[in-house]
């Protein structure tokens, strides 16, 4: 596996993405779901890096930095929502009780 061949990296990215998606679908804990989305984002990052390396372009790394920023913002917002829900008297992290918000 030489440096210019992205296949290995892409396979790892697909595996990572699938694990992340699986995590979102099967975990009921909101924190774990957030983490799973991070995993999916990282999979996307890996794919960009591999592609950038393949064509020797800086775009891949630019996208990586942008996605990391997005991921940070997303987890900040996600954690803030969870904390707010906790502060509002919701003493659980179970995502399936989200349809009982009574809004």
């Amino acid at each position: 596996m030489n440096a210019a061949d992205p296949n290995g990296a892409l396979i790892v990215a697909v595996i990572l993405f699938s694990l992340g998606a699986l995590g979102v679908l099967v975990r009921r804990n909101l924190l774990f779901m957030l983490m799973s989305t991070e995993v999916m984002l990282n999979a996307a990052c890996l794919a960009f890096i591999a592609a950038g390396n393949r064509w020797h372009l800086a775009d891949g790394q630019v996208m990586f930095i942008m996605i990391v920023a997005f991921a940070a913002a997303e987890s900040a917002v996600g954690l803030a929502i969870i904390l707010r829900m906790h502060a509002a008297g919701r003493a659980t992290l179970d995502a399936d009780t989200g349809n009982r918000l009574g809004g």
Partner: protein
Amino acid sequence: MTPIPAIVWGVSLVATLLPLVIACPLFVSIILMLTGGKLPARATTLLVGAGMGLCALFAVISAYSFLTGPDSLGALHVVLWNWMQVGNFTAQIALSLDRLSLVMMLVVSCVGFLILVYACAYMYDDPDIARFFAYMTLFVASMLLLVLASDLLAVFVGWEGVGLCSYLLIGFWYGEQANAVAARKAFVVTRVGDALFLLGMLLMATAVGSLDIPTLLAVGPHAPSTTLTLGMFLLLGGAMAKSAQVPLQTWLPDAMAGPTPVSALIHAATMVTAGVYLLARLHGLFVLTPAAMLACAVVGFVTILLAAGSALVQTDIKRILAYSTMSQLGYMYLALGCGAWHAAMFHLVTHAFFKALLFMAAGSIILRVHHEQDIFKMGGLRKDMPWVFTAFLIGSAALAGLPLITAGYFSKELILGSAYEVSPIFWAGALFGAFLTSIYIFRCVFIVFWGGHRTHAHGRSGMAMALPMAILSVLAIAGGWMEMPDAIANVHIFSNLLSPVLGALPQEHGTSLLIVGSLVPIAGVTIAWTLWRPRDVAPTPAESPAIATLRADWGFDTLYDRIFVRPFMVLAHLNRRDFIDRFYDLIAALTQGSGQAIARLQSGQVRRYAGWIAAGTVAALCLAV
């Protein structure tokens, strides 16, 4: 055809008063409807009395000033507004007063006034008195529109208006199902006639290009004769249904379910004679279609005999009068069919007097014997209510046509003479009808007023009931003296009045017809006396299958029930869930179902949403690759 002098609104007194004649009852009706029964009974009766009094007063004043005015031989047109203009076709809301509509207007407004005064006393204790008078005054307004309108289209508005009021008033006591059924029957049967009338009107409008009656009379004769004949047949059909002539007569006996003043006003004096009036108004066209005239005469002839036969065996006092109304209307149709317009109109007027009187007297009896209508449960009422008895006797004598002293005699003689001119068969049948008439009405008189008491009469009829009856009693006797045959006295006030419109009175016949016509009613009364004079045992209605058929209107009801009502009910039952509706129901169900199915996706479960997103992405990728 002389051109009709058009007088613009506001120029003459008559032109001002004529719309008011219609407006007075209309306004009373609107006030009564808008107050929704909140007015006390006393205020209601005062309002009705004042409104109808003004209406009658205006009618009399305008009649007087028309007859003394310069146009008394022609017609006076009051154009109120242009109703519609479609291409070459124009319809106006216009009133026209000529000598024919004048007579009819006076009958409707004056007899209407008397009957409404009577009704004020009759209905005083009814909780729905405001609704009653709202309909009654609306009826008078519609009837006056029908009479005065100069455009057939406006006549049709009045025509439908009186039909509607008739329906509403027959079913006035709608709490009882029989009344509602009777009202519906009357509405549906007359609707058959209304449809024919509308078709005839449309045919005339396409053939002539106008529905204005003077134009129709002037241009109509140039239309193709088949079109004209068909049009007149259709109009005749409409008139027949309104006037309860065979074969559309079945609604009238059931219409007696309404309060008695309704029967007096609508089903005796005015609405049922609307057809006669209409045909007399269109006599210029009618005379050009001998086939329609013959049909009219035959219908009248058959109705006279059938209705008189049924009246002979009825037990309900109001049904006797209903059948007698049918029979008397038959005389008018016979007269129209024989071209005797004067005779038809004369009989219309006298009939309005004596039949309204008979209904009023019958109403007084019914009110005082606790709403009993079976004549075999009355008896000996002569001593309990001598004045009502006198009124009923006068009305009966006029209906039977007792010679010389009654109004009915002179009008009936005029019809008999004209019928003889056309065919002796018509004359003989009409004479036999007159014979039956005197038998059945005096059967009623002898059973109700003679013999032992079979019921207890209470109370007295008040002034408001007695006075209209007294006035109509006078008219039922003296009303005939305005037109007498030459053999008795040379008085022709009525025919001279109408001659400018209806043409000269035809030549009279000898005294032999007159003598026969005078003897027949007397013979009828004698027979009635021998059959139903007071005896020791109380009279009972004769019973046999034949008489039961006769009593049930010769089986017409059963026949119509078999061939129209029941098949229609079966069809309606089969199609209870309307098959066209099923199609639209299906579309609605599909939309609703798919909406519900998709709505289930929005469960509020984040993981499920994520799952759907993943599945969607996979599907999109699969499609893309």
